[in-house]
């Protein structure tokens, strides 16, 4: 568990929930206001889209960032970023180039107050297997992660399943390196039976992970994407067994933030997104007994 977070399971939101609306009819401060409305203080940003001037934000923007976080009592939790293996045509990024991107993001994430990073690695196949050299540059980045106190976390996202080989490779790496600064963000979409929110097309039925599959991985999980595809009028998520998963996390004394991440339809509709995220947090409050 990364050091600065208080024990227990807490609610938060990812800026991903409104991504098509930013700079159209929404700003970062608007999402902070909505978070305050809901008493959801944990924040995930996608650094590249949210930080003006990324990767070199101005001093002025950073000052505004700190004052907004203070004013709206925001807890920076997860800094989403990418290691761009396909940056150049015709070849994959080498270890040095990957490291340069990664170290820059570790420093910026730490400076902005984040304790976790959602480290998206380049992939080489349909099962989202990461680029072959991932161990080389992650290992060399670990001292920086430790120095700047941020945990690098690839995201475990459907169609990947919690029991896939890739997960075992990650766990093996963590145990071998004896590190607390590499883990993973489990996206609750791995448990979904319907990743469209409107019913999977015939022949495309999903084979989701079971709630108990999360148990062996919990020690390595520092925050989760509380994915939701469809919140109904009774404040229930209709595609994911939320109560079972959260109960298991409580029973195993997991500490960290559940960061709401909407991937259902109509993301261009402000009022729809607003209603969906609020319904999600009414459900989370009820499940967490707040």
């Amino acid at each position, binding site marked *: 568990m990364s050091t600065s977070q208080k024990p227990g399971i807490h609610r938060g939101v990812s*800026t*991903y929930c409104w*991504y*098509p*609306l*930013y*700079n*159209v*009819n929404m700003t970062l401060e608007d999402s902070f206001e909505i978070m305050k409305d809901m008493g959801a203080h944990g924040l995930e940003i*996608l650094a*590249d*889209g949210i930080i*003006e*001037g*990324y*990767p070199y934000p101005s001093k002025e923007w950073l000052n505004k960032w700190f004052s907004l976080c203070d004013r709206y009592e925001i807890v920076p939790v997860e800094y989403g970023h*990418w*290691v*761009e*293996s*396909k*940056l*150049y*045509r*015709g070849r994959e990024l080498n270890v040095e180039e990957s490291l340069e991107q990664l170290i820059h993001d570790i420093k910026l994430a730490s400076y902005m107050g984040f304790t976790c990073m959602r480290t*998206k*690695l*380049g*992939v*080489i*196949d*349909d099962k*989202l297997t990461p*680029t072959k050299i991932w161990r080389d540059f992650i290992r060399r980045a670990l001292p920086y992660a430790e120095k700047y106190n941020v945990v690098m976390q690839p995201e475990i996202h459907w169609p990947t399943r919690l029991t896939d080989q890739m997960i075992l490779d990650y766990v093996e790496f963590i145990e071998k390196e004896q590190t607390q600064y590499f883990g993973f963000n489990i996206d609750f979409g791995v448990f979904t039976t319907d990743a469209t929110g409107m019913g999977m097309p015939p022949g495309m039925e999903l084979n989701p992970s079971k709630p108990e599959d999360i148990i062996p991985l919990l020690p390595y999980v520092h925050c989760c994407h509380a994915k939701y595809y469809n919140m109904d009028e009774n404040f229930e998520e209709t595609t994911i067994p939320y109560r079972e998963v959260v109960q298991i996390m409580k029973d195993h004394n997991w500490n960290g933030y559940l960061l709401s991440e909407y991937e259902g*339809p*109509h*993301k*261009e509709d402000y009022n729809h997104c607003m209603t969906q995220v609020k319904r999600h947090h009414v459900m989370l409050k009820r499940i967490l007994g707040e």
Partner: protein
Amino acid sequence: MLEYEGVQYKGFRNIYNEEGEATGFQVGIRMIGYRGAWLSEFRFGYIEVDGEKFLADRCTFVVSGVEYTYEETFNLGRVKWPLNEAMIVRVQKPGGLAQGSHTVSALYGQVASYVPFGSGELDINQKPGGHGHSESFGYTREMIIV
């Protein structure tokens, strides 16, 4: 502010040389996504107006005030097309576009290392589009040259 659609109405006009002759037109495009693109990951298919396709060889691309040819973007792995900015595509077309309404489309995108399929090269026979996200639209718009 950006308009929601991929193709922007703001900025759609003819462009003129010093002698005041129309040498082409410009149109803004935005990335309906959650991250900007490194220029080396920007992929361009075409700008299409009333059925006529203009490919990269007849276009230049203005980002944060700086104009690039498509080839110039290939090696720029540290220059960012910011998410909150419309890229202005300047298209060479002697005489520019006639006054009145035009059907304007665009095909463009960015490479995403974290998704499995290919190098992101765009097939110019593809229909207009940007990122393939379900909630992105507005890659074809009826727009007026005044």
